[in-house]
């Protein structure tokens, strides 16, 4: 715990420009043991103070929460205030949320890994409970009554014996001079008034009348619009370009070559500047560009999967985890399976195409945009432009979807480069085609799954995967496997199956790859959970009964719930039921899918039941919404779309060749949330991975046909 000096009390607030008439509470670091601090007691330079999660209560009693994470649909813009209001004892509508800029003082800002609640909730509870106790202490001192005779409710402190009340606004100045309590008592879950309740989202109204501001809605005085023709092979250079016709388009003012960051390499393109998005798009269409695509491979999708398959069939790869001796167990097993699964490349296709607004001003750069990691953008621009971090101002807008793509630094960097060349503010708008064809993508992966069964029990599991490793892209050690290799796999299997191994056979190509909602669990889960289904058939056991043999009590409860809501045990043989259960970002989710034959051929999905166990949770309706959406997105990746490459270029350019599930493709979905006393897990992503294997397992149950390659067509089954 850092030492807090008690001299020159308002020093920090003065430097931070925050004045001295409110209660400002923050936290040191973002780890689980963060300590609450009163900003009025901090001395020194705010840039050097690791403060995050500011809660500010001003003299009008208004509470401001500085949200250091992005809102992209997952609902933390609402869920975090729902946590804060609970221990602070204010109404949810009394909390005003503002997005924080990129700044190290907030700790890690990347909105990814479904981490906003699970990695911060204990700190948020402690912070707001501390604030409440300081306000109560201020009132008790003012009234000269014992602290324990006072309590807080709806933004007031109340003296129980007399009913005397004081509004938080009247108390903040005195409260700001109080010591931060060392050990603050938190409420029991049973006493929560807000947490755990399906309270309506505070951002919904903004999203029903067009008033919410996404990146593309940011307008600056004098702002120009830019469209960029980028190298279609994702890493190449511009050999030459002819802007004659582009410059004839009314509204087009300038055309120039640019270079933008792609991880640690660069790609080149030609920027067209105009006075409207339309003119910039038209100008871009009129450009003639010759590319230099030398020095890297121009890949075809068929070659990718052929090489991966050869890898897993001929190489052991880098071991990630190994227990027992799976090779020996498989060699001597009575029954064994050895099969290959393949999952395709996928694109994010957030409904708001990439865009970024930037204003380079010589000694500083300011950017606005749908940004998942403002601190990373700050780092990247600081490095590329050679400016100190504090001169890079990164503002998050609401995000029109993110799914991992908007945690990448290429588009803010590109916007800053264009603004510098232009010497003025500019909004760079990616067309849907730009967004669809430039990556980075969820990598396509080949899995080899081997298993051994003796006396109806799983004796051994051996998994090998080969595909691009995002961890390696992002600077991880290339000669080591990482957790991407087993993401999605349920931990209790390690305790109860003797022989298990996971290995990654390295595979690299020049296509940029990146996180896609639920990351490797979204592909691994298909292989692991389909393979368990295959093993249950081989062992002659019910797929859920087989899983029960190796899972723990917590998982058994989830299975009980799945069975109860879906009528699993009453289903008839070959009626078309399939199940899958995966774990990711500390939450476990199970899906049961029911399918039947469709008139005119193929199969249709009749229903999906989902059970989410995310431990401690805030808002069950937001969780249900996230799981519903994950099911729709998982269905798209299983049975609707894929990204393919020809001669190093992406073949799918827009929704007409990358078809999305539409409302008429969606079966009834029922989602249940488990209640227990476990620690909080993630919510935004873990609902996705089980869908594909539960669906293909259901198709196997109905038809006897095992699907091992995604995507597939429901009509063609």
């Amino acid at each position, binding site marked *: 715990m850092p030492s807090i000096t008690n001299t020159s009390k308002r020093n920090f607030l003065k430097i931070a420009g925050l004045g001295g008439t409110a209660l400002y509470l923050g936290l040191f670091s973002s780890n689980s043991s963060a300590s609450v601090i009163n900003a009025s007691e901090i001395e020194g330079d705010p840039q050097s103070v690791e403060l995050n999660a500011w809660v500010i209560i001003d003299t009008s009693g208004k509470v401001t929460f500085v949200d250091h994470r992005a809102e992209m*649909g997952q609902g933390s813009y609402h869920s975090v205030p729902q946590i804060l209001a609970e221990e602070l004892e204010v109404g949810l509508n009394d909390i005003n949320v503002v997005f924080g800029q990129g700044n190290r003082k907030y700790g890690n800002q990347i909105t990814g890994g479904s981490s906003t609640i699970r990695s911060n909730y204990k700190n948020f509870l402690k912070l707001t409970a501390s604030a409440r106790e300081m306000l109560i202490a201020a009132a008790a001192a003012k009234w000269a009554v014992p602290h324990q005779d006072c309590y807080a409710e709806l933004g007031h402190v109340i003296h129980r014996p007399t009913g005397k009340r004081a509004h938080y606004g009247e108390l903040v100045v005195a409260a700001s001079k109080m010591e931060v309590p060392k050990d603050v008592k938190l409420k029991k879950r049973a006493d929560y008034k807000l947490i755990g309740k399906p309270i309506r989202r505070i951002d919904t109204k903004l*999203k029903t*009348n067009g008033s919410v501001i996404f990146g593309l809605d940011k307008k600056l005085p004098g702002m120009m619009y830019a469209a960029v023709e980028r190298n279609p092979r994702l890493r190449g250079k511009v050999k030459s370009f002819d802007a004659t016709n582009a410059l004839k388009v009314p509204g087009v003012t300038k055309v120039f070559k640019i270079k933008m960051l792609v991880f640690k390499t660069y790609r080149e393109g030609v920027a067209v500047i105009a006075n409207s998005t339309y003119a910039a798009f038209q100008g871009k269409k009129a450009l003639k560009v010759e590319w230099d695509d030398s020095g890297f491979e121009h890949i075809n999708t068929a070659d990718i999967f052929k090489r991966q398959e050869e890898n897993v069939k001929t190489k052991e790869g880098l071991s990630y985890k190994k227990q027992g001796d799976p090779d020996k167990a498989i060699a001597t097993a009575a029954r064994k399976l050895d099969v290959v699964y393949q999952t395709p490349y996928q694109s994010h296709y957030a409904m*708001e195409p990439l865009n970024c607004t930037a204003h380079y001003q010589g000694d500083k750069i300011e950017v606005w945009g749908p940004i998942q990691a403002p601190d990373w953008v700050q780092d990247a621009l600081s490095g590329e432009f050679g400016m100190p971090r504090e001169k890079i101002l990164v503002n998050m807008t609401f995000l029109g979807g993110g799914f991992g793509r908007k945690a990448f630094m290429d588009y803010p960097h590109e916007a800053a480069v264009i603004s510098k060349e232009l010497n003025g503010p500019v909004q760079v708008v990616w067309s849907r085609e730009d967004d669809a064809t430039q990556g980075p993508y969820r990598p396509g992966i080949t899995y080899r799954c081997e298993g051994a069964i003796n006396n109806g029990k799983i004796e051994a599991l051996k998994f090998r995967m080969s595909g691009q490793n995002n961890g390696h892209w992002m600077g991880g050690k290339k000669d080591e496997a990482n957790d991407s290799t087993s993401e999605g796999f349920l931990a209790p299997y390690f305790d109860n199956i003797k022989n298990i191994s996971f290995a990654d056979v390295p595979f690299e190509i020049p296509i940029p790859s990146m996180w896609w909602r639920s990351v490797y669990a979204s592909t691994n889960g298909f292989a692991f959970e389909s393979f368990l289904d295959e093993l249950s058939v081989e062992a002659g056991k019910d797929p859920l009964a087989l899983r029960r043999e190796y899972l723990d009590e917590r998982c058994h409860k989830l299975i009980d719930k799945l069975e109860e809501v879906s009528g699993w045990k009453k289903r008839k043989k070959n009626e078309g039921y399939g199940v899958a259960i995966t774990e990711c970002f500390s939450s476990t989710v199970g899906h049961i899918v029911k399918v039947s034959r469709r008139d005119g051929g193929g199969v249709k999905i009749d229903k999906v039941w989902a059970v989410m166990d995310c431990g401690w949770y805030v808002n069950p309706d937001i969780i249900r919404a996230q799981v519903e959406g994950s099911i729709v997105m998982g269905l798209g990746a299983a049975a609707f779309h894929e990204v393919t490459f020809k001669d190093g270029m992406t073949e799918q350019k*827009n929704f007409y060749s990358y078809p999305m599930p539409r409302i*008429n493709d969606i079966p009834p979905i029922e989602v249940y949330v488990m209640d227990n006393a476990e620690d909080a897990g993630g919510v935004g992503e873990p609902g996705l991975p089980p869908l594909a294997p539960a669906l293909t397992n259901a198709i196997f149950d109905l038809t006897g046909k095992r699907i091992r390659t995604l995507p597939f067509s429901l009509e063609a089954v």
Partner: protein
Amino acid sequence: MSVLKINGQSYTIDADENMPLLWAIRDIVGLTGTKYGCGVAQCGACVVHLDGEAVRSCVTKVSRAQGKQITTIEGLSKNNDHPVQQAWQEIDVPQCGYCHSGQIMSAAVLLRENPNPSDQDIDNAMAGNICRCGTYPRIRNAIKIAAEIQRKATKS
């Protein structure tokens, strides 16, 4: 110069007549509730009403919209209380919210034409609007709630 009548107001704009209405509304008039999603009439994020009919503004030229009443999400109701908006709020339909201007504008036309839509009617009318967050189950429910709200309002 073109004159566009948007949400009851007239705007005289200097724009290429071939410019899609979407960009005229967003970049020139400055109403940003109408969204760009695909530019090729595939996703429905840009749906506005032209004389009461749902059109995709990304493929509707400024020239075609002249002299017609254009309604955008900002003009659907004064107080964010059209039955569709109320229903959307009642069950928290939006997640990221980006596609919902278009979803709501499409649903509003459906409900005017068909005050009591079946699941099949909803699917038919809303299949042109993509939602990447996957809010479809809630869209379906909300349209039924909106129909109920509309029926009650008509009765009273």
